[in-house]
């Protein structure tokens, strides 16, 4: 039986010491879907995202990506991570490498592409995020928005099946947010499956297929954006959305 | 195994060497109590002068620092001990050691303190001067306390090196810890006194090494 979901998280628990951050999450994402994950800080949304590529080891539960259970013994997690792109709040570009170097590193070391081939792939990926002209620039020569787009290209170049975004615009000056959202919009239109943890509610309203609200390590409710934003079922969701709207 | 214990951890020999070795340990502590403050005071002077605005003051001081940092401390010591008598100056061993250490450690303390002073923003000096403090008062009350705190790990690390370095005084027959242990070894033909001395060095310095590891990792984090 094939799994209808590209990402299928079941019964996910995660504790740090005695603190339970995720208390039993069931979360599915279908192919070409864009799912927004929202919730107060400390609700566990970033941890959920990090469990999806096993940057955090789940305490219990399963994470299945593209039909492969990542938590099963013997799974080549590094191979699977090529298919799961991740974008971080603080970009995490390698400061000692150019934009192109940042993108080619995994192409060469993980996909074993040759230098020329990797450079070509990297340039194509940078082109997609509008950064081809900055291929030889170092991260400290780029604005925050430009750095984040290079970070997206770094993930895109590996041709992932799914992309995880961990608050991709939170560290950006307001005037730079648009350029990154534009790239994400383009990716959505080209059919990329995406999970986005973010506070950009406008963008969620415009682009998301589904919004998932997490609080206290559990999914409180989820639904299409129009329903979630105009008529949420639970008071907790309503309170959170009211607070975010006023922020 | 037995031969190892017999030669290195021989309790009977350690016991008979203990008084000599402890006396040496006392001499090491005395040496530290003299050369560390003297070197630090010299370092303070080096730092203040090499940070001066006048090139006439600064350049000779930088030359002094680089000159004496180029010599291994043991070389300075031997030259003072064996060379100065040719110029009619015959220093007792303790004075020779103190002079050699002063020339060496004042440079190292000086470089560290200078970096510390440079790490404090100009605004601090300006603020202090604007309240009417003299340059010297501003330096001692405002700049130096912050500077010392900023370079505390380096200062501790250098002091650790100075304490270890006192062992070279054994070469000019100053009866400090290593010299006493070496005497006891050559009398007993057994290395246990050296192990005993190593144990005393560890007792004194291991806590400092641990402290330094903590400080460095905390700064790195």
């Amino acid at each position, binding site marked *: 039986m094939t799994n209808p979901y590209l990402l299928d998280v079941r019964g996910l628990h995660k504790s740090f010491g005695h603190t339970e951050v995720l208390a039993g999450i069931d979360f599915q994402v279908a192919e070409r879907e864009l799912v927004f994950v929202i919730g107060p800080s400390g609700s566990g949304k970033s941890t959920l995202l990090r469990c999806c590529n096993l940057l955090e080891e789940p305490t219990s539960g399963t994470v299945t990506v593209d039909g492969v259970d990542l938590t099963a013994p013997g799974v080549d997690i590094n191979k699977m991570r090529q298919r799961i792109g991740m974008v971080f709040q603080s970009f995490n570009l*390698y400061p000692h490498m150019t934009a192109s170097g940042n993108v080619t590193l995994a192409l060469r070391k993980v996909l074993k592409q040759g230098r020329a081939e990797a450079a070509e792939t990297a340039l194509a990926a940078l082109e997609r995020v509008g950064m081809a002209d900055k291929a030889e620039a170092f991260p400290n020569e780029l604005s925050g928005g430009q750095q984040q787009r290079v970070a997206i290209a770094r*993930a895109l170049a590996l041709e992932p099946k799914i992309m995880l975004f961990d608050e991709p615009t939170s560290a950006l000056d307001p005037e730079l947010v648009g350029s990154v959202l534009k790239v994400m919009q383009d990716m959505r239109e080209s059919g990329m499956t995406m999970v986005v943890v973010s506070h950009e509610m406008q963008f969620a309203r415009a682009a998301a297929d589904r919004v998932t609200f997490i609080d206290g390590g559990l999914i409180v409710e989820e639904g299409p954006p129009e329903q979630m934003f105009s008529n949420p079922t639970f008071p907790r969701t309503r309170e959170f959305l009211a607070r975010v709207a006023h922020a | 195994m037995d031969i190892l214990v017999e030669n290195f951890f021989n309790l009977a020999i350690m016991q008979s060497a203990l008084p000599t070795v402890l006396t040496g340990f006392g001499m090491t502590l005395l040496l530290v109590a003299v050369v560390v403050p003297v070197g630090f005071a010299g370092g303070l002077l080096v730092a203040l002068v090499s940070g001066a605005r006048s090139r006439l003051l600064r350049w000779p001081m930088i030359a002094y620092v680089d000159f004496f940092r180029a010599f291994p401390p043991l070389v300075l010591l031997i030259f003072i001990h064996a060379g100065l008598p040719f110029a009619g100056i015959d220093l007792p061993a303790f004075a020779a050691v103190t002079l050699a250490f002063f020339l060496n450690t004042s440079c190292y303390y000086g470089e560290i303190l200078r970096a510390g002073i440079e790490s404090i923003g100009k605004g601090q000096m300006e603020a202090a001067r604007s309240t009417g403090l003299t340059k010297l008062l501003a330096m001692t009350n405002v700049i130096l306390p912050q500077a010392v705190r900023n370079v505390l790990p380096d200062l501790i690390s250098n002091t650790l090196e100075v304490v270890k370095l006192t062992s070279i005084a054994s070469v000019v027959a100053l009866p400090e810890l290593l010299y006493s242990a070496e005497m006891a070894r050559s009398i007993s033909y057994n290395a246990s006194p050296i192990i005993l001395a190593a144990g005393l060095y560890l007792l004194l310095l291991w806590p400092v090494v641990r402290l330094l590891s903590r400080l460095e990792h905390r700064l790195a984090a």
Partner: protein
Amino acid sequence: MNDWDRFVFSFFNSDVIEQYLPSIVDGFFLTCLLAIQIVVAGIALGLVLALIRSLKFTPVDLLIVLYADLLRALPPLVLIILFYFALPSVGISMSGFTVVWLTLTLVLGAFAEEIFRAGIVSIDKGQWQAARSTGLTHIQTLISVVLPQAIRITVPPLTNRTIAITKNTALGSVVGVGEILNQATTAQSFSGNASPLMLGAAAYLLLFIPVVVFGRWIETRFAWKRQ
């Protein structure tokens, strides 16, 4: 002979200088040889130990920490005397050169391990996560992403430490290694004249002034990274 003549005779005696210059030159090259071997082996040892420690295998980590602590706490001269005079009694005999090389390599290795380790630890966790999220292994991340950044931070302290430890080659004179200091003091006692000491001093200045100036340059060149 007036005072000045006597001073020149004792410290800058051309006959004595001519006679002992060759042995000081020998000492100079031996010091260089010893120093280079210590620097290469010590830094390599420190790097390997730091890499092993980043694999977080607890029992091995503890051994490395113990080793690094001991060698940082003990005066090198104590170790040299122990290795040279005491080890033969258990059947291990090494030349003075080997003893000094081994001791100072172990000491430099201990300091270098701590410096590399501090550099690796100082790299932001996000760098690890970003690299691992693209499928790089732990080792690949360490080598390609973390180490190149860590090494920048480690260059100034490592340079200073290396210079300080190579100067300890002078301790070789205590166990009969024919390096500069040993040649100078031997010549001084044979000739009853201080000129060989001046030659020795000149040799040290020739060798270490460039090194010290280089160290100063490294400090300022990399200063921006230490904020």
